[in-house]
């Protein structure tokens, strides 16, 4: 009761405090949301591709940060193995495209239409069928106001947008899907691929198959089973962005702790006489500490609520301005953020509690 009364005694300060803490919480939510968005966008393509085995150039571990270039003809040797049910080549190139007079970069992904290696999910239109067709990422098309039927330029070639897909936004760049033949033509190397996707007959011993492929063309490939390849890409993605997001989240957390500590300390200083009176009247230390801790937790929880309420409209607004920004926050993340906020509040309160020790009962005697 006392905690609530102290807080509402100065409504303007309470509002500013709640807003300040809420903004820190929004920042943390935003960073976590962006991280999840990047995580999904970066590996969704691999997750959704049905593959038992991925074959890359020797010494390649992932497709996110590294080039893998193979002769497409190697696939003819690999698919002779009787356990290979189906196989396909995919070529990924970082390519500049022109949209009217603007330039943009996409991860141009050439695949054989109807095979694996295409868009994870078409949300509008259809897959490519011809060499002058392209499927764009949802965020990319929103950013450049492209809709189905629009035209874009790659080098001197005009391609028509025939589909929009999702799960292909890696924030820094987005996937765009064309035919393998067209992708190969852009680099004038018809027999080029980035990797091969193999699907095997049921019951195939994948490790044995890996070994057989290595034995056939020794030293040329890095061969991964699907789960391992996914893990490689996730690890690469985390190594690239996680430290950055962690640092920003940590700054948000520190700012949150500082704001809370300052607010609580100012409250303690302003209520110095109240605390001294309570000490005179026989208040146990635990009662006073409890007041500060409850105050911190209450502030944090109300701010979290304000933060969550403000987060979604704010993110919608940001995503309208920058469609490539993709945030994903679910209830588990909210629980995690609530826990972190409570821990930060508790620690801030403990720091502030030290001030109470320096308030002496004698201060109230005239």
């Amino acid at each position, binding site marked *: 009761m*006392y905690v609530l*009364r102290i807080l509402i005694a100065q409504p303007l300060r309470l509002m500013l405090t709640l807003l300040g803490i809420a903004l820190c919480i929004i920042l943390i939510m935003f960073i976590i949301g962006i991280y999840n968005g990047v995580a999904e966008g970066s590996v969704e393509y691999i997750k959704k591709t049905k593959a038992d085995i991925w074959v890359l150039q020797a010494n390649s571990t992932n497709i996110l940060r590294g080039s893998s270039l193979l002769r497409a003809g190697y696939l003819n040797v690999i698919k002779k193995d009787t356990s290979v049910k189906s196989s396909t080549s995919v070529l990924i190139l970082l390519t500049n495209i022109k949209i009217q007079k603007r330039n943009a970069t996409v991860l141009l992904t050439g695949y054989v239409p109807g095979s694996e290696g295409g868009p994870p999910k078409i949300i509008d239109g259809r897959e490519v069928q011809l060499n002058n067709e392209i499927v764009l990422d949802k965020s990319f098309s929103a950013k450049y106001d492209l809709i189905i039927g629009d035209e874009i330029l790659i080098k001197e070639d005009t391609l028509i947008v025939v589909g929009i897909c999702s799960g292909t936004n890696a924030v820094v760049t987005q996937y765009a899907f064309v035919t393998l033949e067209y992708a190969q033509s852009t680099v004038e190397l018809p027999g080029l691929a980035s990797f091969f996707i193999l699907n095997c007959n049921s019951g195939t011993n994948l490790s044995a198959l890996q070994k057989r492929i290595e034995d056939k063309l020794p030293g040329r490939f890095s061969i991964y089973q699907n789960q391992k390849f996914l893990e490689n890409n996730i690890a690469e993605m985390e190594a690239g962005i996680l430290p950055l997001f962690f640092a920003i989240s940590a700054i948000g957390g520190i700012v949150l702790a500082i704001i809370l500590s300052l607010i609580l300390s100012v409250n303690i200083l302003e209520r110095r*006489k*109240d605390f001294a009176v309570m000490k005179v009247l026989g208040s146990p230390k635990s*009662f006073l500490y409890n007041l500060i801790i409850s105050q911190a937790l209450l502030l944090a929880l109300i701010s979290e609520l304000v933060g969550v309420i403000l987060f979604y409209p704010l993110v919608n607004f940001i995503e309208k301005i920058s469609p490539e920004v993709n945030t994903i926050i679910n209830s588990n993340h909210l629980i995690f953020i609530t826990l972190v906020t409570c821990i930060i509040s508790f620690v801030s309160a403990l720091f502030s509690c030290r001030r109470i020790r320096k308030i002496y009962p004698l201060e109230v005697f005239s």
Partner: protein
Amino acid sequence: MGNDNNQNIVELRKISKVYESRGCRTDALKEIDFTSRRGELILLLGPSGSGKTTLLTIVAGFNQPTEGDVYLFEKDINDYSQTELQQLRAEKIGFIFQSFLLIEALTVYENVELVLRFSRRNRFNSKRNTSDALNQVGILHLSAKSPIELSHGEKQRTAIARAFVNDADLLIADEPTASLETKQGEEIIRLLHTYASEFNKCVIVASHDLRLKTLADKIYYMENGTIVHSEIPSGRNRNG
């Protein structure tokens, strides 16, 4: 520790208090002997700086004497742990101040009830005890008000209810009438006197308000840290 009238609530033996700062020595109290029992209203009378408040802070255990012994409820104050002293203040000692020292964020009722939260013993029946204390000082109807809405007299009554609520055996009042007009001051004096006489409690009042003399059981005149004179007003020698 029953409600024996001869029980010494407070006993000070040869208490001295010296403050030293930057080589400057100030004798705040010099060899004070002082005893108070149940049912007594003790008045410490003297001008500002005479040592009255220092004496009260020593009695309450907030200040250590430089020399001498303090006994509280017939036990050496040094034998109480800090937690025991805190419990003692929460359960057996009430405080009243010149500037009321109410917590403005709380209502009148909450200010009074707050003390009961500090006490293990008095936590039960807190609603009834709080209402009784407010009723005792005649401000039950002001329960929901904020202290900032009250007159000085009402504020002091709230402070008195806060001191009464834990049924304190010892009530320490520092200039309780100094901020009040004559009529309000007299009402407060009567309340304190009633508390001591009718409820068999010990009330120690530090004041320079001569009106209190009429209702005090013992009067100690203080000057420059010493008790220069003590008297028992005629007809008030109840405790021998």
